[in-house]
């Protein structure tokens, strides 16, 4: 139980830190924040239920008024912005990522990559695009056009999620709550 609480809290903190570390400059010359990588890692490392709880905990603190979203944003205002669909999709994305991670029989790295593509991109974008469409009164196609701008960065992050997850399993066996025994 203590391990559940501390892992959920520390991964909520990790999501925040990945958004606050000043532009990790993940690939040469492409400054992107790694916040959505944190969402993917919650799923691949903690599994479906705990991963989603970590993301919900993070969002609760953002709503309570801490500027923990990438770019130092926070407060209730971010839930009234057109990008709110992505925020609502975050916990679902982490859940689906974790769900896939718990069930696939692939090796850890490829499993984490595939789970991140399904949860962190496919599922997240459904929510994000629906949110843009509703908030800006645009059709789903038009909203998808806006969201596509983030696709290359997020695709890169799924690869990183696979590498980081495999690295953690190597360095600390038994640490992936999503895959007991790995």
């Amino acid at each position, binding site marked *: *139980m*203590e*391990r*559940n*609480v*501390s*892992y*959920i*809290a*520390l*991964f*909520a*903190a*990790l999501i*925040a*830190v*990945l958004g*606050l*570390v000043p532009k*990790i*400059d*993940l*690939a*040469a010359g492409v400054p992107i924040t*790694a916040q959505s*990588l944190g969402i993917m*890692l919650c799923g691949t*490392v903690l599994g479906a239920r705990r991963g989603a709880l970590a993301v919900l*905990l*993070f969002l*609760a*603190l953002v*709503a*309570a*008024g*801490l*500027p*923990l979203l990438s770019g*130092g944003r*926070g*407060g*209730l*205002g971010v*839930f*009234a*912005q*057109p990008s709110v669909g992505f925020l609502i999709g975050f916990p679902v994305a982490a859940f689906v990522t974790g769900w896939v991670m718990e069930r696939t029989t692939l090796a850890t790295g490829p499993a984490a990559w595939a789970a991140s593509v399904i949860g962190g991109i496919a599922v997240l974008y459904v929510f994000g695009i629906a949110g843009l469409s509703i*908030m*800006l*009164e*645009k059709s789903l196609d*038009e909203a998808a056009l*806006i969201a596509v701008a983030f696709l290359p960065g997020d695709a890169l992050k799924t690869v*990183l999620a696979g*590498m*980081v997850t495999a*690295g*953690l399993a190597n*360095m*600390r066996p038994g640490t992936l709550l999503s895959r007991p025994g790995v």
Partner: protein
Amino acid sequence: MGPVMLTLTSPVETALHRLPAGAKMATLCGFTVGLFAMDGLLSLTVALVVVGLAYAPGGRPFMQAGLRALWPLWPFVLVVAAWHALTQAPAAGAVVILRLVAAVAAANLVTMTTPLSAMIALFQWLARPLAPLGLPPRRLALAMALVIRFVPVLLQNAGLLTQAWRARSSRPPRWRLLPPLALSAIDEADRVAEALRARGGAG
């Protein structure tokens, strides 16, 4: 550690600061639902003016802070304005923009006038029905406190890892920072779990 863990509550004390958080939250919910039910230019302009007037008692610095908090909206305003200029439906565009600005300004106002502790207390009160599902309010409070405590710790770890990398290489660390940073989160989590067990559990 920088200004990271400062909250978004305004240091300028207004009358709104003294209202209970629950009342402000309920009003905000009602107001936002109302905004999405309106689609007239006039009614939405009135709604925006009402929000603006609610900022007024805070004085100039408070209103300026409110304006600054609206700044992240500009890309959306630009996209919508350009789109509706192209499709020659400026009124429809104005409706979307007015509603957006009014909704965000109202939400920001609640955040700016409610201390973090009051908001967290409200969330814990709202989460009471979850207790039978395995989330007693005490555990939620513990988890929230742990996040607030460990964001600066992990930021510091990220800084130390970057310095350690710079000492060895002239190139920036880029993604190579990520595995050790995630590992540091896991190690901290293991230590916290141990410390909680030693002190009688997570409740």
